[in-house]
């Protein structure tokens, strides 16, 4: 019942906030969004104490936590159910979603100064869909939520965004929607080729994993073709080179709190879906294609990092570095080792927190200086010490400073991939190449910090610069604490994640 409560409370909250006056919509939305945080915290606590043995939701549906299964519709010969539940992979991501939403809402108090009630209503509406994506265990239900995320996002970018918001919003919407179509085609080709009768994800997983004698086209098995189609579909969301170009535009144009959600949670939908669909349902194919997929991941890492090096806009820097960070996730997933896959999922959470933190910090600076361009400002450390302190901490988190979540995640991925059986002899080479990302990331973040935060104070725009408000800095501090907590004690998440991916990895490093 908890998942339904979560969905309903948030949906109801979205409605209430939409109707509320602009004046206190922000505070109301923050208040309402605390309820899902409290609920997920409780669920997380239950996971940490009771559900440690819970397996993978798709492979051992009997062990799903907080599950509800109700028949819903019959579409032709397929049964559609209302089917939700959590396992070790979705729980951390769900917690990430609710926490980040609350913090993003609080961080929106300063920059959003028109149509507040609609803005916060849409944020909560998006949260409903995101909760749905991470909890749904029926494909139909999941797909409704998956697409449902796009609608609020489209308006959030298109209405409250920067100068080129319409271009960015349409690009985002069309790009990801076309991707969903490709993915849908790939998935349903398999559905029709196998004898599933319900669209529940565990049933599909069982059917696809056990499928034999699938038709072949031009020498390729349908499993391979579907895998590639689904991979392309999800890769857009992740995003993976060369399907990434919607991301920098969307990030730059979106208002900061929306960027936080976009980088923090929306990108994880892609990798989460990759893990659930490609790497769970078509495990055998994924293992066969491990080397090319790992190369895609490594190219994303280096390519994203190199592009971040060429940017002047702080938001673009973080946007491109997100591409880089998500490349690690691909590398970790294809390793099929407990540390690799566990680390990949851990990286989803870690990157969600750290990139959210980075965007929020850039947002706080932008609210004060009204510029994000490296070179238009310098010496901010003089005027806003605490914000800059958190910026520095966040940047080092991004660079993979040990005892912060980013290092833990990246280390797990590297360790898991270094002798991955799926990658064979190329494993050490590919892993070492991917590791070079940590040098480039240090390069561009240190460069940007030196130019903007340090040196004599100077600003190209005519705004008074002083310390940021408490409610601007508080979300940053909360996120930073979470990042450090996960870095010092990664088992807070990694343990449940590893339990959930254990059926896939089957031992190893």
């Amino acid at each position, binding site marked *: 019942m908890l998942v339904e409560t979560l969905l309903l409370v948030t949906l109801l909250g979205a409605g209430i906030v939409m109707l509320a006056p602009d004046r206190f919509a922000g505070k109301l939305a923050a208040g309402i969004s605390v309820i899902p945080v409290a609920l997920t915290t409780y669920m997380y606590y239950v996971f940490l104490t009771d559900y440690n043995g819970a397996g993978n939701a798709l492979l051992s549906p009997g062990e799903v936590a907080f599950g509800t299964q109700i028949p819903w519709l019959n579409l032709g010969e397929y049964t559609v159910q209302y089917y939700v539940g959590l396992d070790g992979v979705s729980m951390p991501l769900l917690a990430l979603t609710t926490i980040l939403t609350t913090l993003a809402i609080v961080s929106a108090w300063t920059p959003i100064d028109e149509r507040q009630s609609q803005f916060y209503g849409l944020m909560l509406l998006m949260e409903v869909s995101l909760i749905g994506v991470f909890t749904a265990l029926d494909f139909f239900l999941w797909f409704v939520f998956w697409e449902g995320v796009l609608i609020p996002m489209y308006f959030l970018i298109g209405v409250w965004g920067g100068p080129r918001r319409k271009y960015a919003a349409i*690009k985002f919407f*069309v790009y990801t929607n076309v991707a969903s179509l490709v993915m849908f085609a790939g998935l349903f080709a398999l559905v029709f080729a196998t004898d599933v009768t319900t669209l529940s994800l565990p049933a599909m997983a069982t059917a696809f994993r056990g499928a034999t004698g699938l038709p072949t086209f031009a020498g390729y098995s349908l499993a391979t073709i579907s895998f590639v189609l689904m991979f392309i579909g999800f890769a857009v969301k992740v995003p993976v080179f*060369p399907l990434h*170009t*919607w991301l920098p535009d969307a990030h730059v144009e979106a208002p900061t709190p929306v960027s936080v959600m976009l980088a923090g949670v929306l990108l994880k939908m892609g990798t989460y879906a990759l893990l659930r669909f490609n790497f769970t349902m078509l495990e055998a194919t994924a293992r066969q294609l491990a080397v090319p997929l790992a190369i895609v991941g490594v190219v994303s890492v280096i390519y994203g990092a*190199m*592009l971040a*090096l*060429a940017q002047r806009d702080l938001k673009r820097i973080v946007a491109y570095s997100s591409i880089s960070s998500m490349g690690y996730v691909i590398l970790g997933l294809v390793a099929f080792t*407990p*540390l690799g896959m*566990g680390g990949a999922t851990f990286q989803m959470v870690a990157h969600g927190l750290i990139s959210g933190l980075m965007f929020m910090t850039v947002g706080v600076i932008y609210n004060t200086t009204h510029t994000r361009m490296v070179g238009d400002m310098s*010496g901010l*450390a*003089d005027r806003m010490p605490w914000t800059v302190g958190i910026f520095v901490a966040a940047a*080092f988190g991004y*660079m993979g*400073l*040990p*005892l912060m979540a980013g*290092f*833990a995640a990246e*280390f*797990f991925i*590297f*360790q*898991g991939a*270094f*002798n991955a059986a799926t990658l*064979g*002899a190329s*494993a*050490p080479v590919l*892993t*070492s190449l991917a*590791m070079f990302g*940590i*040098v480039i990331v*240090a*390069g561009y973040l*240190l*460069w940007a*910090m*030196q130019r903007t*935060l*340090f*040196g*004599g*104070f100077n600003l190209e725009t005519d705004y008074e610069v002083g310390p940021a408000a408490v409610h601007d800095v508080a979300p940053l501090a909360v996120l930073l604490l979470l990042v450090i907590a996960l870095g010092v*004690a*990664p*088992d807070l998440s*990694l*343990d449940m994640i*590893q339990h959930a991916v*254990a059926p896939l990895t*089957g*031992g*190893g*490093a």
Partner: protein
Amino acid sequence: MAAFTYAPAIVLLPFVSFLVALFLGDRMPKGGALAGIAATGLSLVLSIWVALDVAGFVGSSTSYNEFIYTWVAGVDSITLRFGLLLDPLSALMLLIVTLIAFLVHIFSLGYMNDEGETGLPRYYAGLGLFTASMLGFVVANNLLMAFIFFELVGLCSYLLIGFWFREDGPPSAAKKAFLVTRFGDYFFLIGVVGIIATFGTGLFAPIREGGQVVEQSFPALAEAAIVDGATGPIAMLETVGMGPQAWFTVLGLLVLGGVIGKSAQFPLHTWLPDAMEGPTPVSALIHAATMVAAGVYLVARMYGFYAISPTALAVIALVGGFTALFAATMGVVKQELKQVLAYSTISQYGYMMLALGSGGYVAAVFHLTTHAVFKALLFLGAGSVIIAMHHNENMWDMGGLKDRMPVTYWTFLSGSLALAGIVPFAGFWSKDEVLYEALIHGFGSSNGLGPVYLLAYTFGLLAVFMTGFYTFRMVYLTFHGEPRTDIARDPVSVGWNVKGPLSVLGVLAATVGFINMAPVAKLTGAHIDFLHKWLNGPDEGGWPAALNTGFHHYEVLLKDVAGVGVGEPLGSIGTLLGSAALSLALALAGLLVARSLYSGPEPVEHTDKLGGVKTILMHNYYQDEYQVWLATGLTYPVARAMDKFDQGVVDGVVNGVSSVSLFGGRRARRIQSGVVSNYATLLTLGLVLLLVVFGLAGGWF
């Protein structure tokens, strides 16, 4: 056992002082300095206690190797844990770090507080965090934990170099320091991951319970693989398709990348001179005595792993010897006090690497110890001079400070004599032993190591002369002759908090060499080579048997596996005396040349006589230039080009698809003419067409 139970507090106390200084510092007197002093003082006391325990004076056990925190328990995967390894090596290093940190905290009262600095809480927080990280690194019992604290040390270095962030220089230097060491750490990280993947553990020393090994260490596993051919459990060898020795050498060299970065060895030494932008006490603590020592310490810590790889040893020795000479030549022409010290630091760490590479494990640790003392002293002395000179560091603006600041002068002189290697000051004993080890192993080693060692020895020997020269050039320019500026005529006086640490270190610099007077021990037969005994342990049982980190074990490995042997061309005593006399003579020669050139009341620059060489030396062999070029001249343009590619080609395709669709739509909509008759016509035609198609398909005609 008691002291070992409290050992984690050695690390945690400075960490607490970090938190206290950061959050409460501005509400405390002295900006949080007292918390730092108290914490490092307590850590020092605890370290002494631990050292006494290790020595066997108190307690029941002489070593400790336990996990204390599980970082990742791991489901079906390896378990990653933090633990403490306390043996003579780490106990000694604990003493050095806590002592210097304690003295630097006190000195900072004079250097920072008395100078009216702002941001003191940030400063003391940085010092506290640094001390904690460094101590964490020292006690780490496995490679992952070592890497973690190694990186944190790098962060602190960044924060403290960039302490004066309002100026342009320090942030840039901080960035460079972190970036260059990060480049080294990249290889280190591959090495860590590779070692854990290969051996399934990163432990430096085996963990035993009741005498039985419950978890083996990676040097021991590597040794077993090479010596006993026990390669079976190491699946990684098959993956990479290499023999055990080749692959272990690769891993060792990867880890060495981090060492070269942190210990500022060629070619990653360029960050250290820039790091002098930081406050001088920071330079003393971090960039001379402790953090830079981390690299060398790491090699010593996992010496069992390097001792089985002749290639790695040769690389270490060559890099070390070359760096020793290379950095010394640059130190000769520098005009700023701290710059001279910076290059001498690089050079001295070169000696330690040379010693480690050529099998002189004890000599390296000995030089690490003495260097920590006299280099901290020199930096603090320089700090004292800098206070006196109103933060002017140019030696040509000084002169004649001898009479005006006697405490600083005499202690600085003690440090300089130690650095130059003049008997009986500390540096003489340790540097002599380094060179002696390189020499005898150069004559006695097989596997092609001999010539390498001799080459490295020659580098080291030449550097001795240079060291003597630049050290006393510095002393003469700073303290002797006539004051050359008004400030030098009337320097600011310094307080007890400056003189106190200087005096302690000044005495130590003169005397710490006595802990290992190996030549004297050999000549007289008296057992006074204490450090050697300390690192060797008892021949039977005790901690060396438990941990495999005793020097005796390393000696056996060096001899049997790497082929490092002893050869004495002039006989046992002759070689010993010859080596000592040669290095002392060269050091004295350097000293005398410096004296003849710079000791007058009005010394003049002689660097112009070097001609073109001067230009090269002043530009540090263009090492900075090419590294900056790599970053801004190569990587950045490539990044720009990739950005163009991304915007033009990758995004161009996306926008192209959109443009084609828009264009097509714009054409297609022309059908919608708005004339209702046209629609009717189209409708009719369409119907007819459909009828025809159906007719043809249906076979009506």
